[in-house]
């Protein structure tokens, strides 16, 4: 029996993929800042506080990457089931990464 593929509009898929990538980058950046203090200092110098720079980075990456993916139309093979699976996996990895890093390190 073939699985039914749900069609959603291209921009929703593009920004969904962008959210997945942004959340992973968010966790990696949080760990990198903690691991390498000069990075945190450099981010602090950009906006006055490393957390503000981190927030701006996440928001800009989400919208810019989402729009870029939408323009390249490279999401044709991604359906809603796949996107939902990616979202759950990436949230799990991001949350586990943050909790694990700050608990054990």
């Amino acid at each position, binding site marked *: 029996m073939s699985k039914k593929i749900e069609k959603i509009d291209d*921009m929703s898929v593009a*920004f969904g993929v962008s*959210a997945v990538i942004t959340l992973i980058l*968010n966790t990696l950046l949080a760990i990198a800042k903690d691991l390498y203090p000069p990075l945190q200092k450099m981010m602090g110098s950009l906006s006055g506080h490393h*957390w503000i720079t981190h*927030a701006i980075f996440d928001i800009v990456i989400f919208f810019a990457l*989402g729009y870029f993916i939408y323009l390249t139309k490279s999401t044709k093979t991604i359906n809603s*089931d796949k996107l939902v699976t990616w979202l759950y996996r990436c949230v799990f990895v991001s949350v586990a990464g943050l909790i694990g890093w700050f608990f054990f390190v």
Partner: protein
Amino acid sequence: MLSNFLVFIHPAFGVLAILAAVWLLVETLNANATNGSRLRKAAWSVAFFMVLALLFGGQWYVTYYPAEKAVILNGPWPFAHNFFMEVKEHLFFIPLILALYLPVVVSRNKLNSNIGARKIVIAVSSIIIGLSLLIEGAGAVINEGATVAYKQMHEGEQK
């Protein structure tokens, strides 16, 4: 005074974002031809309240938290900062980004006829609700960490 206002208003906006996400979840589960407008309002409400939580929480975190952090680290619950605040300040970006994503899906798809879009909205709003509740809980631990630290300082001054 402003510090007290900010410390109470930012979790309040977080709670409103959670309530809006619950509203969106319920509207999505009952998506039909007549609730498209409410779906869009709910999705935009989640994003709006989450951004307000970011702005007010960020203002408090950047301006007033450094002094409180020093007190917490010298108190009996240093983990309130070392673990709970460190996780909370970065975990918050997950529901924030997902909240900004919701209006895109809800505005560009007819949820009553598109099962795929419904699945995405249900997943995203559920994640936002769960993580935001965790963040609210972490905030309570940080608050208690500061309370016990100030209590210890006060007892030290009396001796």
